[in-house]
């Protein structure tokens, strides 16, 4: 273990990125303060029952993250919000709702993402019809061990709508949230496994199977599980007299509009930069990209650096990412922070 260094790093956000970076920095001997607005660390992965592409339990990644932050050099501050961040000489002074933190030599923003609020796409009926739910709510149903409609019956047919809040200029989001397509495929398989008599239809604009074994999972969904895919963006969902949901979509491959009834409609909600992250950006004059996420110093070789010396980024506050890429991005941030702290040390010596 390297000897303890006289440097202090504040990490904002104790999700996948924050926990990974904290563990790595502490192993290199840095003192780390982890600030988290929620009551427990782990972030969004806490909501997840199984993960793509191998359908391992979300719990296993949670355990890895908890192991990372189990280090005497890391102090964890839960239920804590940021009040202000001020730069003073080469130090950052962070005030939280629980008081003033010890001055930091570097800040790592790992503020993550907020889920798109599907009520903004009113035509899908979320918050209007009880059987229109989000991907996160479906995941909660998997965790609870049963997938039922609001009437308490197993759904005969489930529709899954891709790109809710993503690739849609009508809600101000041009970007692709990347992980929803493969999540839809994973959840479609899980429904078929849990309820073999239930038909599942995915309504997609493009199937974006970008990661290793994602395309294979898509193929498995068709081949082994009989999941149906219809290329087209759902235009609207409405409840009929029997209380079933009528979905309208253009079947673009058939070149015709299509209507069908479903018992449960699952909206694959996308990622947006978190509100808490954007507040910090205002405070520090950090650049926000046209996609709403933090703008990185260089898209190819500087995507952990910000426009402020000493302020770094990790994870989904810079772009939509899966867990694997978030962990890699957080580890890369540690390398950037470490080399920054070493060079600023040399500057002081001169």
């Amino acid at each position, binding site marked *: 273990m390297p000897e303890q260094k006289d440097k202090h790093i504040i990490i904002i956000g104790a999700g996948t990125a924050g926990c990974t970076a904290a563990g790595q920095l502490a192993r290199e001997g840095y003192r780390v303060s982890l600030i988290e607005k929620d009551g427990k660390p782990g972030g969004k992965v806490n909501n997840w029952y199984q993960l793509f592409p191998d359908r391992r339990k979300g719990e296993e990644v949670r355990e890895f993250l908890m192991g990372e932050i189990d280090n005497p050099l890391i102090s964890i501050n839960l239920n804590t919000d940021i009040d202000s961040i001020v730069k003073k000489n080469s130090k950052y002074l962070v005030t939280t709702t629980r008081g003033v933190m010890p001055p930091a030599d570097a800040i790592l923003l790992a503020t993550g993402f907020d889920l798109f609020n599907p009520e903004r796409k009113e035509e899908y009926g979320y918050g209007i019809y009880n059987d229109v739910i989000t991907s996160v709510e479906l995941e909660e149903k998997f965790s609870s061990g049963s997938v039922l409609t609001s009437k308490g019956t197993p759904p005969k047919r489930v529709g899954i709508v891709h790109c809710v809040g993503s690739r849609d200029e009508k809600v101000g989001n041009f970007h692709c949230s990347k992980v929803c397509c493969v999540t839809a495929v994973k959840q479609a398989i899980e429904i078929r496994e849990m309820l073999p008599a239930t038909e599942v239809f995915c309504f997609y604009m493009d*199937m974006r199977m970008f990661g290793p074994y994602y395309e294979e999972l898509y*193929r498995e969904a*068709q*081949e082994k599980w*009989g999941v*149906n*895919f219809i*290329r087209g963006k759902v235009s609207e969902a409405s409840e009929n007299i029997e209380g079933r949901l009528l979905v309208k979509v253009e*079947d673009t*491959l*058939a*070149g*015709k*509009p*299509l*209507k*069908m*009834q479903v018992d449960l409609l699952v909206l694959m909600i996308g990622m947006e930069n978190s509100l808490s992250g954007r507040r910090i950006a205002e405070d520090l004059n950090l650049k926000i990209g046209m996609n709403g996420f933090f703008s990185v110093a260089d898209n190819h070789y500087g995507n952990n650096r910000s426009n402020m010396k000493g302020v770094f980024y990790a994870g989904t506050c810079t772009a939509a990412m899966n867990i694997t890429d978030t962990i890699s991005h957080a580890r890369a941030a540690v390398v950037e922070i470490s080399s920054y702290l070493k060079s600023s040390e040399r500057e002081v010596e001169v």
Partner: protein
Amino acid sequence: MKNFGFSSIKPRVIDYDRNNKAVSDYILKHEPSFALCIGCGGCAATCSAARFTDMSLRKLNILVKRGENDEVRRLMNKCMLCGKCTLVCPRGVNTRNVIFLTQQAFRKLDNYAV
């Protein structure tokens, strides 16, 4: 009766809940690779019949799955069963057999055997 020149138009919309998907079920049962189509259109691009007719296996696959049987009936006999489509399919769908089974399914359907 006097003809006023009006006629009723059949809606273009695919009414999935009403359509009969027996042909699709029949093909899936005998040729499970049918499920693997991703609609890339490689088959239609190489199709010999498509040069001179509106035959499109890419489209036919989808229409079968949706139960749009009238259009399937119209298209399926334009195929010459040359099998070039099978050679190009990136998902390994036995496309020639899909057409063959489609024709067979309709023959059985007409004899009430599906």
